[in-house]
């Protein structure tokens, strides 16, 4: 059976060159980069080269601004909890948005519930976009930190980060962005954007899983979130995941060298897929922003049907996608992001996200456009909500 992987928003295939770069650090240079001896020093050279690659990809000023973490979620936790706890005498108000990833939302909720912080959750428009005016209005005397994602993982909408960061700077509020979906698939420049902190994750752009990084601009103080040894200049305890860090560095290098060409290719496939779905299937709702959009993200709701059924049916044809349906989220409600854009529960349950990467090919797009209409029709025939006109 043909296998078409279009769930790159969830995770990506590790690039063979990434794995190749990692391998010697499992079997030969397996030392601890904190060690004095040769095994350790070889490992250290590797991690510092990787740090430099991360720095370059996001245009940080200094490799020491990069803290390696165990993934994007940990980077978000470190940024938000670490900053909030280190600066709480200055104020206990945080600002975020209703469409953030759970790594941000649940962290904010924890600080609210358990640590005496208060949090403003900015609303979004029907495209899932935050407004700079709303943001400016939400800033209070005691606001210390704002955290707004740069690219939405579900509907692909890009937030106006540069504008938001400018507002934050003017008001003396530290600004963090969860750029886990953006880094590696589109240009990201922390200095041009003017952000103070930025999270990224290896496995979203063909690096390994379980490794990420937090960019922290020089001068920004935060507490560690994982307490332990003196690693990462005492900002993150734990033996370095050397192979993972090497892999992240390699993924950054590949991304840097291949952008913007790959971005253009992936966007073109995305637009073809969007058009193919709109042209071939009735009663669909396009989700997210039509232009301000992650290069690989396609998201539709198909009225009258439920997302998990759709995923199962697609999987039977070898097509891997995801959905914001409740059944796939582990909760009873469908995606908070889809609801925040104004969709009803019923429509939100019928969402399908197809996310592309540099490994997708045009014939895969054709294949999906060929298969999807029949699947949707079959499920609609089964649906008590559907009355064929």
């Amino acid at each position, binding site marked *: 059976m043909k296998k078409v992987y279009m769930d790159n928003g969830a995770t990506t295939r590790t690039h063979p060159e990434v794995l190749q770069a990692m391998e010697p650090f499992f079997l030969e240079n397996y030392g601890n980069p904190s060690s004095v001896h040769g095994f350790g020093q070889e490992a250290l050279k590797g991690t510092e080269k990787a740090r430099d690659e991360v720095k370059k990809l996001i245009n940080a000023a200094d490799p020491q601004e990069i803290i390696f973490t165990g993934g994007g979620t940990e980077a978000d936790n470190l940024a938000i909890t670490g900053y909030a706890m280190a600066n709480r005498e200055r104020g206990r108000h945080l600002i975020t948005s209703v469409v953030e990833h759970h790594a941000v939302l649940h962290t904010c909720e924890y600080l609210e519930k358990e640590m005496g912080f208060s949090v403003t959750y900015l609303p979004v428009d029907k495209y899932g976009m935050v407004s700079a005016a709303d943001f400016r209005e939400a800033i209070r005397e005691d606001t210390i930190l704002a955290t707004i994602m740069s690219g939405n993982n579900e509907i692909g909408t890009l937030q106006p980060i540069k504008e938001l960061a400018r507002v934050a700077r003017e008001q003396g509020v530290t600004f963090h962005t969860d750029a886990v979906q953006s880094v590696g698939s589109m240009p990201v420049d922390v200095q041009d954007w003017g952000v103070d902190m930025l999270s990224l994750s290896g496995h979203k752009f063909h690096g390994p899983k379980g490794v990420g990084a937090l960019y922290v601009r020089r001068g920004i103080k935060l507490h560690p979130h994982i307490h332990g040894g003196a690693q990462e200049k005492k900002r993150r305890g734990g033996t370095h995941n050397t192979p993972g860090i090497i892999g992240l560095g390699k993924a950054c290098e590949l991304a840097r060298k291949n952008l913007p060409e790959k971005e253009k290719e992936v966007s073109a496939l995305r637009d073809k897929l969007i058009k193919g779905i709109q042209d071939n299937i009735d009663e669909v709702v396009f989700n997210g922003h039509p232009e301000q959009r992650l290069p690989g993200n396609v998201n539709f709701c198909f009225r009258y049907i439920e997302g998990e059924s759709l995923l199962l049916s697609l999987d039977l044809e070898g097509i891997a996608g995801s959905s914001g349906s409740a059944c796939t989220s582990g909760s009873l409600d469908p995606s908070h992001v889809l609801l925040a854009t104004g969709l009803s529960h019923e429509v939100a349950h019928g969402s399908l996200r197809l996310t592309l990467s540099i490994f997708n090919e045009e014939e895969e797009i054709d294949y999906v456009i060929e298969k999807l209409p029949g699947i949707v029709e079959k499920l609609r025939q*089964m649906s008590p*909500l559907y009355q064929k006109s």
Partner: protein
Amino acid sequence: MYSERVMDHFTNPRNMGDMEDPDGRSQVGNPTCGDIMEIAIKVEDNRISDIRFKTFGCGAAVATSSMVTEMAKNKTLEEAEKLTNQAVAEALDGLPPVKMHCSNLAAEALQKAIDDYRAKQNREG
């Protein structure tokens, strides 16, 4: 995630579709939760002679709907009423723990269709 049985019923649902002039019908669940099931039955000589379902919901919801219709068909109403969610889930070789609530709907929908039939009988009789 799902057993082969579940996938079989999901892929080839039994007794799916509309029924003209059913003797009893039901709808349970609601679109907010992401699960709706409709069951329609024909009754002859106190037996379920025909049965149809329609479902909006996840794979488990579709499969339990399909399975319950297969299990109920040709049973007497009293036998059919004894069908439990547990029995439906077992006939499907089990459901993932998080999905056990889905199988609740199928037996409920069947029961309500039988209730509807009886209520009609009482009104007519």
